[in-house]
């Protein structure tokens, strides 16, 4: 059964299929959700709050999401490429590729996690 992440504020509601949510970036008090389709959407919620929402709402697919450092949450199903020396994390964003940056140590841990799952 498809799971949805539902984000509500006082004036609106955003409902996103968890499989369609590629990554989330943080901008201070705001976060930007990048989906497979459509424009990125900014919400007035801090990244930590979104992490809690994912934890509370997504029973089955919550563990697909990985928090990387203070500013990024990615959906491991959309990870395309990791390059540690270049600090590159490339996500498959629908039909396009999106390049993100993270610390070398975090990317090393991510690579070990993703690589270890295939063994």
């Amino acid at each position: 059964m498809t799971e949805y992440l539902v984000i509500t504020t006082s004036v609106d509601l955003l409902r996103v299929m968890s499989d369609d949510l590629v990554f989330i970036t943080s901008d201070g008090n705001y976060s930007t959700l990048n989906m497979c389709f459509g424009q990125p959407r900014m919400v007035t919620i801090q990244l930590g709050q979104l992490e809690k929402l994912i934890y509370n709402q997504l029973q089955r697919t919550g563990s697909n999401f990985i928090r990387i450092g203070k500013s990024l949450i990615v959906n491991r199903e959309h990870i395309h490429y990791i390059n540690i020396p270049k600090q590159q994390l490339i996500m498959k964003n629908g039909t396009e590729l999106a390049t993100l940056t993270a610390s070398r140590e975090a990317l090393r841990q991510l690579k070990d996690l993703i690589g270890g799952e295939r063994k």
Partner: protein
Amino acid sequence: MKKDISEDEIRVIGSSGPADDNRKRIWIVAVAAVLVVAAILVAALLLHKQSTQSNQPNESPQTNQSDQPPQPQVNQNWLSNDVDSLPSAVSVIDTVSNGIHLQLLTPYNSIPQLLVGNIDTNDKNIILATMAADIRRDNGKIVGAFVCKGEPLAWGLSKRGYCAIIGDRMAIGTAENSPLFEQATEQQGYFFRHYSCVDEGIAVENNPENKAYRRALCSIDGRIVVIVSLDKVLMNDFSVALANIGVDNAIFLVGGYAQGWYIDQQSEKHSLGLNSLGDNENVNYLVFKRK
């Protein structure tokens, strides 16, 4: 779920097991108990206060001078960007301070105002627009005291930095109580609050947050300047960078990709950000309009 995470860590969301769930339940019960006790104490305190004090808006000064706490040191230096030889436009200076790339936007010969609600991005009279006060996540209301054309729309002391606009003059400062709030309501002026960034030349320390593109409303040598960071930085690093380039007083503005733009002296329009935060009726902007 562990709260803090460093830049070098990763965390799989939803990875906690039954042991973590039990610990979470115990925490929730303990916190709820503390909150109930605190609520009872606060209610008792408020009831006691109501029986001895009159009910006034937070920002208005007390009338009984002999019982008053000392008046705060409020910066009353009014700022102005009127220069006869310059057009009604924004001058742009790029600089670097403490390794942070900054853009200094000075709107000349213009009238500052606050606007509430969706803004007309095609209004050619606006030479600079940027979001001003934050909006509360829980109820969509404006954070901190806010006055628009003499009408108070919000009250509160959540942030110590303030900006007051009376006539076409502006004052920027840091104070918990400011008579400029009441003056703005009496004289069809404007007033809003945000985190203080620089206070009398000294960087103000705020609670640590993530790195983001920052904006601030500043006074430098009697001039109004909007300064934006071209790098994602921490609030405190941004404050120190501003203090180092000689900013006298500054308060934060809504940053990140928040909607904003300016018109330069070649009449070119430049975007500061495109996100309008949806249709929230309380979204508000600091604008500078041509004289």
